């Protein structure tokens, strides 16, 4: 089959590779019909999370048709059109039973590496290197899906591939940030990042009853999508002084819930951005916490901060004082979407959540290296590149 592979830092290629096959009885093989680029992939492509081996297949946000099932698969069958959660969960361990499926005890085949990095092991994930178990990714014609009964969801009638593909990751990640961040009716919510996840976090906050939602970014076309499609307000941090603007917008209080949807390659025009970039380029810190820092400052006293952006290691100048003295609740997580996806698919079907606008560039898998190029450099208004194998 054809697949998009990581060749080295900022180098991708489409290669002919072996077809995947069923290895365990709860596996299935899915013929991928749509697979989309994600901002977290850029951390792998750029070598910021250095756990990709040359030749590894990228991609974790996808849907497709089941073409083969293992002997112990009970709830799915060949021919089902399914969206698949990015994280691989067994559904049986204590964490899965608590709904924390990204923390599954049983699906990561590299526990030693995880334990060394984080003091514990998170679950497996498609196309994310050895950190999440070394599973082959979805930017391919076929992908092996372990525990298909747990991790796949039949797409309802009337929901297109372009809509459903984002329910694999961006939609449940955004929902998790708003819901588990504790958004309540009447809250003022600030979201850092106007990419797919940030937009879905903003929409989720609105659906949970927030009275005002503001999304912070610098890319004009993404901010326009937030205003025109999501219906939230925007701040372009390159045009105004962010913190005073946010303070004024929240009646002097700060955000009740601050959601960070940027990740470890954050940009900032200020001195902190220069400092972070210099230190990460010199490999004196692995991640740039610029947006997290801003979220901690921008949250109200006693407010909530939820970190959705992906971080791989260690940061410098984390505002621990702000966190402690303001009495903030700070949480973060990889995506625990299994519990939310059926409800979110229904919301997409009812038109409460729009996603198709995120796929600004649809192209053949053969063109995926170009897709990642424009996605990484935010060229031509690219929000997400959607690949059709």
């Amino acid at each position, binding site marked *: 089959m054809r697949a998009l592979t990581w*060749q080295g830092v900022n180098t991708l290629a489409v290669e002919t590779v072996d077809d995947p096959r069923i290895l365990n009885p709860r596996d299935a093989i899915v013929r991928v019909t749509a697979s989309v680029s994600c901002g977290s992939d850029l951390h792998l492509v750029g070598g910021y999370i250095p756990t990709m081996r*040359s*030749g590894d297949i990228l991609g974790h946000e996808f849907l497709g048709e089941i073409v083969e099932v293992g002997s112990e698969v009970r709830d799915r069958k060949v021919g089902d059109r399914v969206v698949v959660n990015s994280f691989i969960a067994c559904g049986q361990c204590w964490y899965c039973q608590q709904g924390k499926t990204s923390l599954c*005890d049983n699906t990561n085949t590299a526990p030693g590496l995880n334990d060394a990095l984080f003091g514990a092991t998170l679950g497996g994930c498609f196309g994310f290197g050895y950190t999440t178990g070394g599973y082959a990714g979805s930017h391919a014609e076929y992908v092996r899906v372990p525990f298909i009964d747990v991790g796949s969801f039949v797409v309802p009638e009337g929901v297109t591939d372009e809509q459903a593909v984002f329910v694999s990751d961006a939609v449940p990640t955004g929902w998790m940030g708003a819901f588990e961040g504790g958004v309540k009716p009447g809250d003022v919510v600030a979201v850092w990042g106007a990419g797919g996840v940030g937009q879905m976090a903003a929409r989720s906050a609105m659906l949970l009853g927030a009275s005002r939602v503001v999304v912070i970014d610098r890319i004009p076309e993404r901010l326009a999508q937030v205003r025109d499609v999501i219906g939230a307000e925007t701040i372009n941090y390159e045009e105004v002084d962010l913190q005073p603007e946010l303070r004024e917008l929240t009646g002097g209080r700060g955000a009740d819930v601050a959601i960070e949807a940027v990740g470890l390659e954050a940009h900032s025009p200020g001195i902190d951005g220069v400092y972070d970039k210099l230190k990460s380029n010199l490999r004196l810190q692995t991640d740039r916490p610029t947006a997290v820092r801003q979220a901690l400052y921008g949250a109200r006293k006693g407010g909530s901060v939820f970190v959705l952006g992906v971080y791989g290691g260690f940061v410098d100048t984390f505002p621990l004082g702000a966190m402690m003295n303001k009495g903030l609740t700070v949480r973060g997580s990889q995506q625990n979407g299994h519990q939310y996806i059926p409800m979110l698919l229904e919301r997409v079907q009812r038109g409460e959540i729009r996603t198709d606008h995120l796929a600004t560039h649809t192209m053949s898998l053969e063109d995926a290296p170009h897709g990642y190029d424009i996605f990484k450099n935010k060229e031509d208004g690219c929000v997400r590149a959607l690949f059709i194998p």
Partner: protein
Amino acid sequence: MTSEKPRDDTARWRVVTVQRSEADVIGAMAPLTALGYGVETRLSTAPGDRGTELAARIRSGSQLSADDVRVALRQTKQLAEAGEIAVVQPAPHGHRKRTPQGALLDAIAAKSEGKGVL
């Protein structure tokens, strides 16, 4: 200041919590029993409805390594909870370049299953 001899890490108990009853755990202990007399096990009820704590340690004089025990504990937990042991190989992949980083990653991946905080 006292000087204390370092604890023998090889001989200590290593523990996993399995979200299953003791009977279910016993039924899934093939990876541990395959290690033979060289490993000693014990079971106890985990607090807070979290199933069973399964502990194992290497008997004195055994040639088993800590990695052997970690792998067997994890595999027992996976069999008891999920019904299968997670595997990724053979996974489809493209051309593997021979680079120092690649060699390092391969070495880490090869050892990772038996390493960790257990």
